């Protein structure tokens, strides 16, 4: 949109006319009014959530002639109020990299599939022929565990729902996991253990209600810039507001810190326990809150590091992978944390005692409302579930939870890690709406809603993200389909645990992607994929806000959406092939039918007819919907409405979303949505309608943690345990990896936006000047980073935005030309199975 002076006057006049008529016009209506009036500027504006992080900003996309020609921040969005970060402002360019894939590609020699052949263009028919042949062979030989799918927290809600249904109901395989395993699984684990329901109790509104903010392993300034701008606004305008930042290195969020703390990796476990100890010693805990709303538990210890079972560390661990909780008295808890004194914690964490004490005093002050925020520093941690829990402990001890401004808040990384990966249940152990495969009651609910014969859903959890790669390498799983992520660059231990499985001649690897990523070029079959504005979509952000968008533009060439690909591939299997005759006999009416007929043409998903030209906005602009046109029914609506039944018919209350059509009209709603109203704070009467519904005796303003049977949250004690590896004589540095503001994850989209590439062209190694000097290095020196697992070359940066302490270096992972994840160990939190991307050992030599 070109906003000339004439346009501006016109739009002001329209707004004024609307105002005098008592109407308020939305930003899109205003923008459309501006451009529709102008003959040569017929740009259509429509809302769409940002494609990148978990914040969930809304943007307005301007479309002309079937292409996005501009984007701007959406002023009507409560999340971002018209503001975007640098990535968000360049969304308009992400679909237009010149190397978009436009046809399926198969490795061939002499016209036949050959794993060592060259990629050749083929038709969708041929693509699904070879894929079905390989998948059926694997199913026949290994059963449902022989195939697997790796999806994404960037999938739309219906992409994920269809994938879960296809894998779990269709192929009876729980080998479905999202890349959200790499980023949010520890947060999920702690929510389920502590509260029995996933996702934060508060909302982004806490950013304007809190007095103080504590960042535990989160660099919000770069990773959640718009939420950071809201936090900065509060810090700089509210009297007495303060910001505390904890990290293993100095980063941009420290620029605002009143109390910045650099701790030795893994000692965050000590710091959280020290704060609890301080609160107890100073009698600053809320006795009544604890008595009425909290159960105190302890977790089994010495649980290993999620490595292969034969790894010496797993053999040595007494309770490898165990998470059993047992009761604990308050006195025993007080005794357990009493070890974490100020002196002890300061000594081991290397954080000065006065800084630690200042933080503890803040939490203990009954007058201060506190928002704790964290992301990957806490989740990508071999004790991530424990660590998430230890922060909840502090909020539960003080009763500072589930009310405006008092808010332990787990930020998500991806745009729909919550909405899709977590809520829809695309994890190897989950079903929609917080249900799990191992509980017979939960399976029964899913089988009823999905109209499946009893016993269809496999009770055994499938392979999680890291295990999938191990199983490919070990030939236990032979077919793998990856959608909407770039695991070859984002997964850990690429050389030892990823590439071998992909290259194994027994395995058939399919990757769906819009661009030739490292994953795509490592695959046997590439499926060209419609992205973002090229399909109708829905994301769920970190504050439980579900946001929809309409398809804005067609996808290039033969590209098709992930949803289309899943539904179309399901046509290739009969129920007999997928389930076996015995299971089909339980529902003879399904005999001879395809999975597509049983899963998607089941009278529910295909319930809503679709005719071209029927998807319209409030200004009567018409939008395409390529999948619905192809299948002959409104697929997204049918899938969403079927999915909603899990929220009300399942045994887990409090997940209600609004009907499909509502979301196309609003800037998102935060679930639970009851009678059209969203919920900003859960578990507190007056804010959350489920409290009274589930416990009529609760008084106004009181809390009821209804995710647990007795309405009480779990405070879970966990001690410090050492990390999986620590710097030694040869590998004498810690390596921490992560993102940068200007790039999204592996850079598939942002590396193709020239301005973003020029902003941060390379992944440099950020290091401490004295570490550099010790090795004869200067700013810009060429170096080789080496771990026991792999190496990269890069240049040194000692003056940049990240300033590590002595003994630690940081390298971002967006750069396809420097695969830093080759150096990482595939150690995970043994409970959540989430990889620790923040700690491994390396050495640095001159290159």
């Amino acid at each position, binding site marked *: 949109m070109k906003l000339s002076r004439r346009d501006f006057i016109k739009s002001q006049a329209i707004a004024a006319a609307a105002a005098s008529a008592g109407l308020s016009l939305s930003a899109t209506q205003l923008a459309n009014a501006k451009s529709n009036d102008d003959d040569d500027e017929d740009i259509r504006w429509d809302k769409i959530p940002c494609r990148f992080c978990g914040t969930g900003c809304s943007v307005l996309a301007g479309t002309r002639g079937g*292409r996005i*020609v*501009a*984007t*701007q*921040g959406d002023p009507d969005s409560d999340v971002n*109020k018209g*503001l*975007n*970060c*640098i990535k968000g*402002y*360049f969304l*308009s*360019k992400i679909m*237009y*990299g*010149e190397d978009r894939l436009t046809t399926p590609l198969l490795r061939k*020699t*002499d*016209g036949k599939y050959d794993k060592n052949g*060259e*990629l*050749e*263009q*083929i038709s969708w028919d041929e693509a699904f022929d070879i894929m079905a042949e390989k998948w059926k062979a694997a199913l026949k030989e290994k059963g449902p565990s022989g195939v697997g799918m790796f999806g994404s927290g960037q999938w739309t809600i219906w992409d994920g729902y269809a994938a879960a249904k296809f894998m779990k109901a269709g192929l009876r395989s729980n080998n479905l996991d999202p890349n959200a395993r790499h980023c949010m699984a520890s947060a999920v684990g702690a929510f389920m253990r502590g509260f029995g329901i996933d996702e934060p109790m508060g909302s982004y509104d806490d950013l304007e209600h809190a007095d103080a903010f504590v960042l535990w392993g989160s660099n919000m300034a770069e990773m959640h810039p718009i939420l*950071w701008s*809201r936090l*900065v*606004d509060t810090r*700089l*305008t509210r009297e007495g507001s303060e910001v505390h930042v904890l990290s293993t290195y100095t980063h*941009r969020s420290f*620029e*605002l810190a*009143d109390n910045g703390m650099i701790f030795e990796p893994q000692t965050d476990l000590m710091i959280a326990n020290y704060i609890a100890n301080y609160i107890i010693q100073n009698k600053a805990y809320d006795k009544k809150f604890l008595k009425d709303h909290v159960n105190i538990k302890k977790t089994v210890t010495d649980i290993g590091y999620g490595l292969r079972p034969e790894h010496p560390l797993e053999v040595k661990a007494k309770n490898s992978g165990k998470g059993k909780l047992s009761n604990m008295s308050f006195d025993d808890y007080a005794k357990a944390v009493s070890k974490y004194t100020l002196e002890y914690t300061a000594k081991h964490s290397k954080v000065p005692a006065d800084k630690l004490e200042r933080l503890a005093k803040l939490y203990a002050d009954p007058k201060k409302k506190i928002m704790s925020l964290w992301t990957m520093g806490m989740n990508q941690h071999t004790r991530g579930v424990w660590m998430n829990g230890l922060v909840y402990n502090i909020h539960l001890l003080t009763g500072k939870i589930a009310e405006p401004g008092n808010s332990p808040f787990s930020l998500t990384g991806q745009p729909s890690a919550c909405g899709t990966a977590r809520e829809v249940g695309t994890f190897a152990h989950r079903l929609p709406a917080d249900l799990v495969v191992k509980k017979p009651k939960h399976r029964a609910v899913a089988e009823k809603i999905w109209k499946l014969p009893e016993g269809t859903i496999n009770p055994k959890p499938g392979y999680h993200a890291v295990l999938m790669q191990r199983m490919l390498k070990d030939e236990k799983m032979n077919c793998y389909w990856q959608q909407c992520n770039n695991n*070859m660059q984002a997964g850990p231990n690429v050389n030892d645990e990823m*590439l071998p499985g992909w290259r194994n001649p027994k395995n058939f690897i399919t990757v769906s992607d819009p661009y*030739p990523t*490292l994953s795509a*070029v490592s695959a046997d079959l590439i499926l060209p994929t419609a992205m973002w504005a090229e399909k109708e979509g829905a994301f769920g952000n970190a504050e439980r806000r579900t946001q929809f968008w309409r398809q804005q533009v067609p996808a290039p060439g033969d590209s098709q959406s992930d949803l289309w690909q899943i539904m179309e591939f399901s046509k290739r299997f009969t129920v007999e092939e997928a389930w076996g005759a015995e299971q089909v006999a339980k529902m003879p009416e399904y005999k001879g039918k395809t999975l597509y007929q049983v899963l998607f043409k089941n009278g529910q998903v295909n319930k809503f007819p679709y005719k071209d030209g029927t998807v319209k906005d409030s200004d009567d602009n018409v939008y395409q919907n390529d999948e619905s046109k192809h299948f002959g029914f409104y697929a997204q609506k049918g899938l969403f409405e079927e999915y909603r039944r899990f929220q009300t018919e399942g045994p887990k209350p409090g997940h209600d979303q609004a009907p499909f059509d509502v979301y196309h009209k609003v800037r998102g709603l935060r679930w639970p949505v009851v009678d059209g109203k969203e919920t900003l704070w859960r578990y507190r009467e007056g804010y959350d309608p489920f409290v009274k519904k589930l416990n009529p005796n609760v008084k106004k303003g009181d809390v009821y943690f209804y995710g647990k049977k007795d309405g009480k949250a779990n405070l879970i004690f966990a001690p410090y345990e050492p990390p999986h590896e620590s710097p030694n004589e040869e590998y004498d540095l810690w390596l921490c990896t992560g993102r940068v*503001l*200007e790039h999204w994850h592996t850079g598939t989209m942002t*590396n*193709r*936006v*020239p*301005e973003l*590439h*020029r*902003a941060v*062209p*390379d992944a440099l190694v950020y290091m401490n000047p004295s570490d550099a000097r010790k090795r004869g290095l200067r700013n810009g020196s*060429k170096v080789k980073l080496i771990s026991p697992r792999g190496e990269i*070359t*890069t*240049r040194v940066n000692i003056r940049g935005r990240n300033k590590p302490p002595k003994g630690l270096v940081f390298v971002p992972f967006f750069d*396809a*030309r420097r*695969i830093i994840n080759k150096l990482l160990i595939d150690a995970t939190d043994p409970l959540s199975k989430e990889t620790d991307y923040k700690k491994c050992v390396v050495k640095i030599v001159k290159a």
Partner: protein
Amino acid sequence: MKTLISTLLLSLLALTLQTSSVFAEPVYSLRGTVGVDELSEMIPNRRSMAVDGGIDVNFEDQPPVIPHNIDKTRITLHENSCLGCHSKENQKITNAVRPPKSHYRTREGDKLRQISTGRYFCTQCHVPQAYTKPLVNNDFKN
């Protein structure tokens, strides 16, 4: 290493010639011809762009990129050296680009005399540029 790459390239070329099918097309990742299991070439030395008069925007609402080096710029709780040149007051003297009106409003849209505290960290939206070619051309058209 170099000989390995050239051998690979040669064999790749040979394969392409052999298959000479009309459908065959080389597909490269951002690593170009360097395999996932190989080491990439060293990064060239980078320099920030310095462009008098600024760098044109692609579309109306794009935040302008920074046409100069910002290595010495500091934004902290106590100082914002960007505003040393760019604030409404100082730009009259320095002739630097003045922040637009949008920057002088609260989140709720109320007018402000000073730049909005929500926009205090300039580099969330404005970034410098290095002299380097795009990895892949982008055919966005405004």
